């Protein structure tokens, strides 16, 4: 266990080192901090003096060491736009993103496992075919488009006049397919409740929950079909295996065969892929938050790009790197706990 943690820690340090090097290279090459500080009118001689004073003329390695030392102490510099420490800006936007990711992860887990398992057990049933059809369509719709369609249907509302209005069934069908469009689709709404004096949550009030539904469904819409297909494919493979056949030959109930013997083996590759997909999820928060103006890190990052707010961009990259490293370690840990053939000593048995 300790060996495993040490190995993971070394890996994490290596990854963070690469990221910080990249981040610093970006900072070093992008924009002129002096110009940001003093503006255009200051003469070149003064600029040179300032450069010297801030150590901007030092060799790359010296500058990088200084940057890394500061970053380790939580000092990522000041955001040009917000005029406050970049880390504080991130910390303020972090809860919104985490809640969004949490809500859609909940949706994904809640639906992908039962649907994936069902369509593996009964691959030819109409319900399975329906879900497989839906899932390939789901994969083919980009997140932001799902979000826009959801906004049109549930927030703006649809007025269907396709069926002839004069007849009774026509009016009924028109009103059946028309939607009211009263779901909120802009920001976190007024429903947030403050927790611990710092964390604003959407989960503590009805209004807050209503606000998070559409963004969370949009974010889940791309991962959910992926996971359904993955779970189905893995489960179908596992159901062909000898140990499942043997479990049946032992006379144990089908429920136990499916949910103990097969599902546990199915989840091993799913956990691994899930770990990789967390990274993708962070990328998709940028898209989802943009559509819904959700005030999280993704929206903040995009704004920072448009404002060329270099320190904020770099801090975001570093923080996202940290999040990846932590989640990957957690995923490996869970994998090791589920799979007895992996000893947490680091080498597979």
């Amino acid at each position, binding site marked *: 266990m300790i060996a495993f943690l040490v190995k993971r820690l070394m890996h994490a340090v290596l990854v963070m080192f690469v990221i910080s090097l990249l981040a610093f290279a970006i900072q070093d090459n992008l924009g002129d901090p002096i110009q940001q500080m003093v503006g255009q009118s200051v003469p070149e001689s003064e600029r040179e003096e300032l450069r010297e004073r801030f150590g901007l003329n030092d060799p790359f390695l010296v500058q990088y060491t200084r940057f890394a030392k500061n970053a380790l102490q939580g000092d990522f510099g000041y955001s040009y736009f917000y005029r406050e420490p970049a880390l504080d800006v991130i910390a303020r936007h972090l809860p919104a993103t985490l809640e969004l990711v949490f809500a859609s992860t909940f949706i994904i887990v809640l639906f992908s496992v039962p649907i994936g398992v069902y369509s593996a057990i009964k691959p030819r049933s109409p319900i399975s075919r329906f879900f497989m059809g839906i899932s390939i369509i789901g994969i083919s719709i980009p997140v932001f488009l799902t979000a826009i369609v959801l906004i049109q249907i549930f927030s703006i509302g649809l007025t269907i006049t396709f069926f002839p209005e004069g007849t009774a069934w026509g009016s009924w069908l028109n009103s059946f397919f028309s939607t009211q469009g009263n779901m909120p689709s802009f920001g976190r709404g007024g429903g947030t409740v403050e927790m611990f004096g710092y964390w604003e949550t959407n989960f503590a009030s009805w209004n807050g929950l209503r606000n998070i539904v559409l963004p969370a469904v949009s974010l889940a819409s791309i991962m959910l079909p992926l996971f359904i297909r993955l779970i189905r494919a893995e489960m179908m493979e596992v159901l062909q295996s000898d*140990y499942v*056949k043997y479990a049946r030959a*032992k*006379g*144990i109930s089908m429920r136990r065969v499916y949910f103990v*013997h097969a599902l546990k*083996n199915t989840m*091993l590759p799913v956990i691994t892929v899930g770990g990789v997909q967390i990274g993708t999820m962070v990328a998709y928060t940028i898209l989802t938050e943009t559509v819904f103006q959700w005030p999280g890190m993704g929206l903040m990052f995009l704004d920072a790009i448009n404002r060329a707010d270099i320190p904020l961009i770099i801090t975001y990259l570093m923080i996202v790197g940290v999040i990846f490293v932590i989640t990957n370690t957690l995923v490996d840990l869970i994998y090791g706990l589920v799979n007895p053939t992996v000893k947490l000593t680091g080498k597979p048995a």
Partner: protein
Amino acid sequence: MALLEVTNLDVRFGLRQGEVRALRDVNFTLERGERLGIVGESGAGKSVAAFSLLNLIAKPGFIAGGSISFEGKTLNTMSERGLRKVRGNRISMIFQDPMMTLNPVLSIGEQMVECLKAHRRISSKEASAICLDKLRQVQIPSPETRLDQYPHELSGGMRQRVIIAIALLLDPDIIIADEPTTALDVTIQAEIMALLLELCEQHNVGLILITHDLGVVSQVTQRMLVMYAGRVIEQGPTREIINDPQHPYTQGLINALPQMATPGERLNQIRGSMPSLSNLPSGCAFHPRCNFINRADGKPRPACIEQVPGFVESGNCRVACHMVAEMLEDRRLKEETS
């Protein structure tokens, strides 16, 4: 009435190219405590026969006809719930490859206890005690530690011992063993086989042993079936068949054994290979490989090509071969005339 009675078993696979008949006209019985061997090349339908006994053939396979009767109850028409009470309880199975048979993510104890609990109302403590007892019977070193271990921590031979222990857990009437030693190291094959034989004798358990190893069959079983291309071609007491095989295929199998060859000479092999089930030769499925047909005047008997041979009694054995039938008929006629 026999303990297990299989009559006219017919198993088919519904494939996209059409139905393939994997097994037809299979008949045999098994008495309590009797040991029966099923022999044949791979693809002859031995494993299908084993799995169909417990109605465990994987889709697209299905039992198209015939009956499997166990203690007077017909297994092939029984509900899934009823079958579950037989599986692992009255009839248990041993699979070919112990590396693939045990679930890698469940502990040995879990996989043993679940089998007991599926068939008996029993506390976990009692279940563990029974499991431990069975592990002792299969002579696993330090059985106490095994329950908490996972399959990957055990060697192949040990895993097969665990599987034998699971097969014996509920004191079944019959054990179906599908090539139980093929996947093991040669050095421990004999050891595992001897253990299985000893335990079956000790507990008076019937054994259906599926194998391609004639040596093992002759040592372990009392009666045997020889299968070719989905049909039984010869069946009877093991000793008689081994000592005096009637069917040309069985003769070929026995002649192909290394100990039958003269040292320094080539092994006697049956020429050709087993036909695919979806494309069987007409008449007797063995005729293109049969040595007897081409021997007399270089031409096969018309009957061999046109007609599927029926069974003829020869001593205590039943053989499906036109040539054997003709020979017997000749002999009978001679006896009558003299």
